[in-house]
């Protein structure tokens, strides 16, 4: 459905500003009289606080105030449950223990704030750390997910009987019956490691309380400006319109920036109101690793039952999910794991159980992929183990079990993160795999290239996997589209932008309807003064959900253009055409009017208007899907493993994905490549490591390795398939997490293949030492 603007690889509107250093980021904000905040954080992961003495800090020149939990009085309270519990799932247990803004009586993770220092500069505030005497009694920490549930384990929350945060069972069909009929049953323990969001820009928060106008302005790096505005207003006893949240340009989100009700956004507005001075806090990298949320840590006990021909009869998966010290984000991540474990294959019987566990680690909330990579990793590993057992080719066993288009829409029987039963709306999963095999040259590699390279002593392997990506969940987003008297368009929506190219892709959606060039369309995201309804940027929903709302508003504006012009020109609407910033009569193009002039006419200042007519070339619209749209794809990668160093080089990476209609294929490619980079990082470089005492051992980029340009595949190919979703007019599915989801599963399979199948690897994060250990264990 590509048009003049929509569907075209148009260069990004925002790039001139970003690339020439003219974009404003949060640390660029400098207000008169601004103070700076620093958080003193606990070195201990689990401890009882005896006493915090900050009297010496107050004497330090430049320190304005110091607060501990006690100083906030009644204002201190555990934060809201940001995502509600899965009450839709019968029999589920969920123990809500939401994040506290600052530790009181007890510390539950290393990095939890103990005191906040407000000073004339950040430098002084951090120097004052040395003046604060914290008397603390260390407690044994809980880190191992399985040991955490054993009787006698130290309790993260002592008012609970155990460290169990949630227990959720979902089943479709009857797994035990299926198992009894199976020819082959394969059981494995599968580990998925913990990764950070690791955005280029850390978090930040600036707040100004203007006493005379009683207005609070907040600049934040949040993915959820409207929920943030709502919670701040509620806590401070203000109306929503007394709090304006603005997100400036943001250097990457990747999930953790969706989290609100943390120390900064809870405490700093209160302090700013008390001190009547603006306050700024910019997170440093170590704080980001320690105290910004991260994800992935799961232990699965998974089982697959098949016929001897390789047809899946059932899957059972009981898994432990680490939620960290608190569970403010409900069960989004493990529910995504449940829905994605079996979503691309025909699995008639499926039993899945979540045991969510409290540990003395940072809170877990979604990171790009958000539970999906775990589900896909588990299923793809089971498929590989089954292929080996049945002596089948990995591609063959997958092809045999993939769902086909005739089966859609398919009700999955499994309730997901949006609390409704999952429905696979559309897709062509086999074609994704076929096309991937074709682009990578699968048969030729297996039959000719690999044997030849192996004969030369090379350790080359191929991995091939499939995946789905549940995207574009509700509840809703909205947008307002306005044509100005200058003939340009303003588009405002409630979500925020962290680099996804919204300023261009949203403009393309509008341009197609109103016939005004993309360059003349100004998109405003993440400013509650411009649009104040919505949920935020998460779950790959920006383009599909906010994009659909924008489309709906643009269609209404288009209708207004035709309706008004029809009256002015005294011509029926069907005789009119819009484009190049004007509207004209088809049969007589000289009879035309600039849209800016029409906008003025749409807003009369004298005279009368017809009943029911709304002023301006402006419209507001909303869109909310009944359930999310599911994208899908397949990945193949060829790796070359150096037997001396165990370094793995990705030689060739192919991804075929189907996200429905593409708004801007260039931006889409960038999204997918970025996701692949994250997937490769998750598979071979990035790993958050906590020791037995809950100390994070990888809190800098020296130890937490990010994949670099040189670690990216030597050859990368992208194949697009378009199966539009019936869920929205534009047929768009999300794609923001596509690259990250399947990559670890494909990587591990390729490494096994490179090692001639000598070892079986059931964990998602490898590195040269780990591969060496596997080989040593084998010998």
């Amino acid at each position, binding site marked *: 459905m590509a048009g003049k603007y929509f569907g075209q690889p148009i260069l990004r509107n925002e790039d001139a500003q970003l690339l020439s250093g003219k974009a404003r980021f949060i640390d660029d904000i400098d207000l008169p009289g601004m103070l700076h905040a620093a958080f003193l954080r606990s*070195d*201990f*992961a689990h401890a009882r606080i005896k006493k915090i003495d900050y009297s010496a800090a107050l004497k330090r020149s430049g320190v304005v105030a110091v607060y501990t939990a006690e100083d906030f009085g009644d204002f201190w309270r555990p934060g809201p449950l940001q995502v509600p519990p899965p009450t839709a799932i019968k029999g589920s247990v969920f123990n809500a223990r939401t994040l506290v803004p600052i530790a009181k009586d007890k510390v539950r993770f*290393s990095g939890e704030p103990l005191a906040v220092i407000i000073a004339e500069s950040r430098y002084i505030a951090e120097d004052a*750390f*040395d003046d604060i005497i914290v008397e603390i009694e260390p407690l044994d920490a809980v880190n191992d997910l399985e040991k955490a549930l054993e009787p006698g384990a130290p309790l993260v929350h002592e008012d609970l009987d155990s460290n169990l945060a949630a227990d959720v069972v979902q089943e479709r069909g009857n797994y035990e019956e299926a198992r009894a009929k199976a020819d082959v049953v394969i059981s494995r323990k599968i580990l998925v490691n913990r990764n950070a969001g690791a955005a280029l820009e850390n978090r930040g928060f600036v707040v100004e309380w203007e006493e005379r106008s009683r207005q609070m302005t907040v600049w934040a790096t949040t993915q959820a400006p409207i929920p943030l505005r709502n919670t701040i207003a509620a806590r401070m006893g203000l109306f929503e319109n007394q709090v304006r949240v603005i997100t400036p340009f943001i250097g990457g989100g990747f999930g953790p920036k969706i989290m609100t009700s943390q120390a900064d956004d809870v405490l700093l507005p209160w302090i700013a109101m008390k001190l009547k001075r603006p306050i700024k806090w910019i997170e440093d990298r*170590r704080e980001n*690793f*320690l105290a910004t949320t991260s994800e992935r840590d799961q232990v699965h006990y998974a089982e697959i039952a098949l016929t001897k021909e390789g047809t899946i009869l059932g899957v059972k998966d009981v898994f432990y999910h680490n939620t960290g010290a608190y569970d403010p984000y409900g069960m989004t991540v493990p529910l995504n794991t449940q829905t994605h474990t079996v979503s691309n294959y025909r699995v008639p019987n499926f039993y899945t159980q979540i045991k969510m566990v409290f540990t003395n680690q940072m809170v877990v909330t979604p990171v790009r992929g958000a539970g999906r990579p775990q589900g896909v990793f588990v299923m793809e590993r089971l498929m590989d183990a089954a292929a080996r057992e049945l002596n089948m080719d990995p591609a063959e066993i997958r092809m045999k079990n993939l769902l086909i288009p005739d089966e859609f829409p398919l009700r999955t029987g499994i309730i997901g993160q949006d609390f409704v039963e999952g429905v696979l709306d559309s897709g062509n999963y086999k074609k994704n795999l076929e096309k991937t095999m074709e682009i990578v040259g699968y048969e030729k590699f297996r039959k000719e290239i690999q044997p030849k390279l192996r004969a030369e002593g090379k350790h080359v392997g191929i991995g091939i996997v499939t995946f789905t990506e549940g995207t574009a969940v509700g509840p809703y987003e909205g947008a307002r589209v306005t044509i100005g008297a200058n003939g340009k368009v303003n588009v405002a929506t409630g979500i925020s932008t962290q680099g996804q190219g919204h300023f261009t892709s949203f403009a393309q959606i509008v341009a197609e309807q109103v016939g005004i060039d993309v360059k003349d369309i100004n998109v405003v995201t993440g400013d509650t003064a411009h649009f104040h309804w919505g949920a935020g940027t998460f779950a790959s929903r920006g383009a599909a959900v906010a994009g659909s709302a924008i489309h709906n508003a643009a269609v209404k504006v288009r209708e207004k253009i035709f309706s008004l012009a029809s009256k002015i020109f005294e011509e029926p609407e069907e005789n009119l055409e819009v484009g190049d910033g004007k509207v004209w009569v088809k049969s007589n193009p000289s009879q035309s009017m600039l849209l800016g002039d029409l906008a003025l006419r749409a807003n009369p200042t004298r005279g009368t208007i017809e009943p029911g007519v709304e002023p301006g070339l402006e419209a507001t619209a909303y869109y909310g899907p009944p359930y999310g749209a599911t994208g899908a794809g397949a990945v193949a990668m060829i790796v070359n493993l150096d037997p001396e160093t165990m370094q793995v080089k990705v030689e060739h990476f192919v991804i075929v994905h189907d996200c429905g209609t593409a708004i801007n294929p260039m931006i889409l490619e960038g999204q997918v490549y970025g996701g692949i980079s994250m997937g490769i990082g998750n598979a071979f470089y990035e790993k958050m490591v906590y*020791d037995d*005492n809950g*100390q*994070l*051992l*990888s*809190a*800098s980029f*020296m*130890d937490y390795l990010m994949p670099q340009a040189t670690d990216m595949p030597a050859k990368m190919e992208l194949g697009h398939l378009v199966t539009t979703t019936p869920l929205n007019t534009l047929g768009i599915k999300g794609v923001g997490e596509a690259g990250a989801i399947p990559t670890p599963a494909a990587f591990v399979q390729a490494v096994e293949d490179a090692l001639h199948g000598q070892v079986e690897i059931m964990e998602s994060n490898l590195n040269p030492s780990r591969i060496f250990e596997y080989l040593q264990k084998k010998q």
Partner: protein
Amino acid sequence: MKIEGEHVFKGPRQAVWEMFRDPEVLASAMPGTQSLKKIDDQHYEGMMNVRIGPVSGSFAGQLTVSNENLPESCTLTVDGRGAAGFAKGVGNVHFFENGESTTLMKYDGEVTIGGTLASVGQRMIDSVSKSMIKSAFETLDKALEARLAAKSGNTPIEFKPPTEAEFAKNVAKDMAGGLTNVAEVRMLLYIVPVALLFLIVALIARGCGG
């Protein structure tokens, strides 16, 4: 992490023991030490100012000596906290007559660390602490030589402990071949304070061994 090692001192056990009963000598082996006080035979308290590379701040430590089996062995527990984090260590020390007027000291222990020390420095602590212990032993060897010379009435040998800066430089050199001006190398020094704590364990250990 585990630490273990041994060192041969060129002096009789009695002389080595006396050296370790002298807090000033111990402090000289750990530049930056503000105080090292003996509270009683079982308890010591120390304050150390750490100003090396990007790390600055004070570090307070308590040391407890237990399971004393003089002059052969003892157990040491050290608990130190400061701006850069905390360290807790338990170590066992053995002290042997080694013939020809030399003394063999063996130590092994387990140290737990937290805070910046763990989150930023974990990876390098092992090698840096080894290097620092080596550097401290060199200082103590010289101190012992000077003490023995003074005792025997021979020409006194001048003993000048290294300054904080010299000490830090030696460790950095050991770690990175003298590239002290490279930012990444300076990062190594983050873990210096914990290595200093290991030193307290190792050195005081020999004190009780006498």
